[in-house]
């Protein structure tokens, strides 16, 4: 097989992987971002009434253990999205 065509094939594979990874990250980043903002920066009028199911996965006591609110939200949202809502966080320990 021609050397150039082999390079072209590698570029095809690398290129499509990269595009898929980046757009997957676009989706993931967007989802995490929306959840964090929803939880901590929701606009006053519509904040507590419309909590999405994902957000209610987190028990409120978690928030009082000295872990910054934003970090917590990031962890929670990430787990939530990656496990497609099946994983739930029960507790987080800080050493």
């Amino acid at each position, binding site marked *: 097989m*021609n050397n150039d065509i082999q390079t072209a094939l590698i570029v095809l594979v690398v290129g*499509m992987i990269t*595009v898929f990874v980046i*757009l997957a990250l*676009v989706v993931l980043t967007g989802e995490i971002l*929306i959840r964090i*903002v929803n939880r901590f920066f929701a606009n006053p009028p*519509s904040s507590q009434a419309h909590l999405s199911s994902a957000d209610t996965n987190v028990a409120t006591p978690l928030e009082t253990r000295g872990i910054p609110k934003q970090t917590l939200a990031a962890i929670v949202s990430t787990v939530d999205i990656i496990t497609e809502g099946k994983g739930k966080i029960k507790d987080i320990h800080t050493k």
Partner: protein
Amino acid sequence: MNILERLFEMTALGELIESPLTLVMFALAFVLLYLGIKKRFEPLLLVPIAFGLLLANFPGGQMNVIQATADNGLLKMTILEIAKEYGIMNMLYYLLIKTGLLPPLIFLGVGAMTDFGPMLRNLRLAFFGAAAQIGIFTVLISAVAMGFTLKQAGALGIIGGADGPTAIYTSIVLAPELLGPIAIAAYSYMALVPVIIPFVVRFTTTESELKIHMKKQEKLYPSKTKIKNLRTVKIIFPIALGTIVSLLVPSSVPLVGMLLFGNLIKEIGSDTNRLFKAASETIMNTATIFLGLCVGATMTADTFLNSQTLMIVVGGFIAFAVSIFGGIMAVKIYNIFSKKKINPLIGATGLSAVPMASRVANDIALKYDPSNHILQYAMSSNISGVIGSAVAAGVLISFLS
């Protein structure tokens, strides 16, 4: 007589007699002007390209771009030397185009005019903007097989990204000698999206697929997260995405980074309104005019009328068609595994050509089911297709240049 001879020498009539093919270039200019003005094919680019072509065809005006070679030493000359020796059009070309400056500046303006809202509201559909980049790489391989160099093949393939500035940027970096035909092909096919998408859709989808009703599916299987503070999300999103892209595909930063910066200064609002106006008006409009004229000026009978141009025209069409096909197939495969079905037209718009592709997809959907408004959904993969092809361009540049 002496005076008449000198009069004749002053004109370009002698050159026209020597290379009568220049008439073909004039004809091409008139056709492009007709398409741009009367048929309204991307007039902002095709009109300057055509007029640049018109002005470029006689050396006496020094309005045609001379490609740099090892011999003519153009790459070593200062801007002033280029202007003195080869005229202002070459000055503009070597200062603004050959440096790769204008496409990122246009992306800055595009970003300032892009609303990521529809994409954020239907985020998961953005994923289908990835599959619709397959035409780029398929044509890359085919073009190499047809005898193009790897760099030229990459520049040809990027036409399948259906994004003008991305195609021009990639051509400048990889194969500046093909800039003219690639730019014309890219903008022409983008204008022909209302013809190409239905053509591909007809051969790849069934009526029942085209009737998949997005809103009803959404109600059956709700998945979207309601956005409670859209403004904050829209401000943080370009920052977050810019960080990720600059980390993972640095070679696409000149395009994607500028796009996201333009978007950020738009979303911040009145505090950065001066920057927004500079990006979306001053810089954008000025860059467009010079880009068009210079691209047109690269095309002369010698460089344009050859079999490569023909192959670019054909290859560009194939890249477009394969990209649309890829987007549709990705949806079909998704539908096999998911209960919640997606209309394959959402895949077809992953190509980009924003926002025309979305409008075309919406029209097709409405033809099969007048209640099936898919515009908002199509816009998601449509916008993500811009990012997708800019990332693909980054990969091509990173591997081939």
